[in-house]
């Protein structure tokens, strides 16, 4: 299984490149304090230094902060928020989706109406409102992003559960008298995991974008340096100092692209039939 998986994954060159890039970002986040021991907020040089100046590789911002230090430390916030909020969204989404799909009937109706309620409100607007209400902090950002990200995961999980629950192996488990919890967790969930993992990986990318957008609007955690914040703070001087918003933008682009490529690779590796069909078209 695992060898097949890797072979399928490695067949997709994009996915390998994505994985390499993602690994680089992860390393950057892990060793941020080693690469730039000083706080990314500290004003280390004169403001408005262009890239490749003496002491700052990617230039300095309007207050003389090092852009490169901001990017390295910002990767932590992006990954942290991307991963935790996706995990929370995954938990909510899969739980609700599994219940709806497994039990059907009024449970399904109730949960799906509830999900639709969230889906009818534009994602981003809801996130802005939530963060504004709970005052911007890392916790409220994670919560807000998770709350707007779970509905697609719930629908996906419900679909998988609906189709699997009438299959023979599930019926067999029911007949042998296994408990509902056990059937859901041990029988159906493992078999529906592949598409959910793929969707979750894309949720991480969306979460990073959402965090950047919120920070761009000044709704980020005011004590944490993030890429979106860097772009938002320097968009006002973009005509005089392109580098202040350009490099963080590139960082977001690369990270999100990497995650998307990895997600696609996972898709290919986990759902080989689907993938082949997709390419044949």
């Amino acid at each position, binding site marked *: 299984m695992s060898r097949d998986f890797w072979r399928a994954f490695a067949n997709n060159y994009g996915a390998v490149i994505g994985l390499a890039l993602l690994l680089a970002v992860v390393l950057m986040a892990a060793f941020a304090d080693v690469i730039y021991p000083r706080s990314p907020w*500290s004003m280390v040089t004169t403001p408005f230094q262009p890239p490749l100046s003496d002491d700052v590789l990617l230039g300095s911002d309007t207050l003389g902060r090092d852009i490169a230090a901001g990017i390295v430390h910002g990767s932590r916030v992006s990954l942290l928020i991307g991963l935790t909020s996706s995990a929370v969204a995954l938990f909510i989404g899969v739980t609700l989706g599994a219940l709806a799909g497994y039990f059907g009937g009024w449970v399904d109706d109730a949960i799906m109406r509830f999900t639709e309620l969230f889906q009818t409100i534009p994602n981003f607007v809801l996130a802005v409102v939530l963060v504004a209400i709970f005052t*911007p902090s890392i916790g409220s950002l994670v919560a807000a992003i998770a709350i707007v990200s779970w509905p697609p995961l719930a629908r996906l999980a419900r679909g998988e559960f609906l189709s699997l629950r009438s299959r023979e192996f599930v019926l067999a488990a029911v007949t042998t008298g296994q408990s509902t919890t056990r059937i859901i967790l041990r029988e159906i969930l493992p078999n529906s995991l592949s598409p959910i993992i793929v969707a979750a990986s894309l949720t991480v990318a969306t979460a990073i974008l959402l965090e950047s957008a919120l920070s761009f609007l000044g709704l980020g955690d*005011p004590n944490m340096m993030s890429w979106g914040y860097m772009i938002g703070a320097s968009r006002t001087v973009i005509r005089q100092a392109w580098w202040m918003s350009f490099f963080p933008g590139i960082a977001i682009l690369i990270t999100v692209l990497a995650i998307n490529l990895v997600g696609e690779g996972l898709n290919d590796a986990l759902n080989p039939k689907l993938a082949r069909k997709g390419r044949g078209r």
Partner: protein
Amino acid sequence: MKTVSVDSVSYQLKGSNWWARATAACLLALGSGALFSTSAVADEPQHGGTLNVILDPEPPMLILGINQQAPTQLVAGKMYESLLRYDFELEPMPSLASEWEISDDGLTYTFHLQEGVTWHDGEPFTSHDVVFTATEFLPETHPRASSNFRRLESVTAPDDHTVVFQLDEAYPAFILAFEVASFPIMPAHIYEGTDFTDNEMNDHPIGTGPFKFERWSRGDYVQLTAYEDYWQDGKPYLDQIYFRLIPDAASRALALETQQVDISSFNNIEPFDVPRLEQLPHLEVITEGYEIAAPLSWIEINHRVEPLDDPRFRQAMMYALDREFIRDNIFMGLGRVPTGPINTVTIEYTDEVHIYEHDPDRAMELMDEMGLEPDGNGVRAEVELLPLPYGETFIRLAEYTREALGQVGIRVRMRSTDSAGWAQRVADWEYELTNNFVYQYGHPALGVSRTYICDNIRQGVLFSNTMGYCNEEVDDLFARAAVENDPDERAALYAKVQQILVEELPVIWLLEMEFPTIVNTRVRNATTTAIGVADTFADTWIEQ
């Protein structure tokens, strides 16, 4: 110029830099392919034309006697007038009063009103309107009226064109209380005997000014047209003024760039856009015209919190901040580094005080003295900062403050709020540090003492003494200075109080803010007085 009013003469003198403008206009004409005809050099006011002015945010109403927020002033200042105006040195100039006398004991102010003034509905303007405004209207509606008129014993009208204000003690600041936002004359024939805030004419302002109300398309524009029977013959020069509501800062800058609007004021344009706009040949940046407002920006400190109650700690914070860096890199050079509580352009300012230079070592010495030793992370104290939610500039300021204080071992936590939350927290004393700026209205008795006197520690009231600073000597000096009629004595009292305040630092003064008025060069005389863009625009004209 046909008119003979005193102010128009003084304008002509002030306008003596005409050659500079003419040269600029010539250069502009050359630069833009001789788009402008040679009439550009003429300095004779021309009649006609429509002026477009940026208005942001939308004012709640246009009745200046009831609401005096900056956007209201900008529009209503063209429709309403007061008795006086003030030049850039805050010397009074005629407006609805043609002449005035102050008795030697400083107790009697006699104003002689202009003749032939009518309200926009044709009714004659008389001394009765002034008495009504001073005794009935403003005391009920104007937040600063009670302090401005506190020493007022009576207001009487011996005849239709004379008004006498009698004070019960000398109050030299009183002569500065007749600017249009402090004392807009309201029409007695409309408001007398009615509920002022609920009058049906509140949707249709009636004043004596050079422009009358035409229409207000909510969310879009306010249109004023020239009042044909204005008391200054031949004025106004403009046919109409449109106040355009443009809620987005970037769009406002663009509107100036593309010449869709002619004038921006106050903080319409973010400081970082100003250097760029200044480079454009068709725009001119004027920083005069805010002498009445004279905003002073500071870090407000809650003295109820340790260690902020210790003057040495406040001094340490002052030494830790590089205020020139703040001015140059956050406010893009707009403003002056203050020396104390009174703005340089405000009356009774002195520079004979201790000057705080940027000196982080001194800051750490002071904290050592207090026994605030750095812990393992180099942290000596921790404070919370509530940034002022008024846009990018103040967020940058808060970030700078956090770093600068962090360097001397004061860890600053930032907490974000929206503007309603900010106002509520500061007014209710639920903050440690915040940024604030307050207008001074030309005189320390009008706009400075209120921040520092014990009497004004009022929970729930914004722009009061929200720090909780209280020093009886300061109270006494401010009280005596306000009623001291002898100029030398008064100056000495104000100098003393400034020295004490600079020593004790109730707040940390960061910047004497300068607002840029950005004007299209085709517009002349946009700013001629300390009232700036809130003035009438009676003398403003457009080069055709």
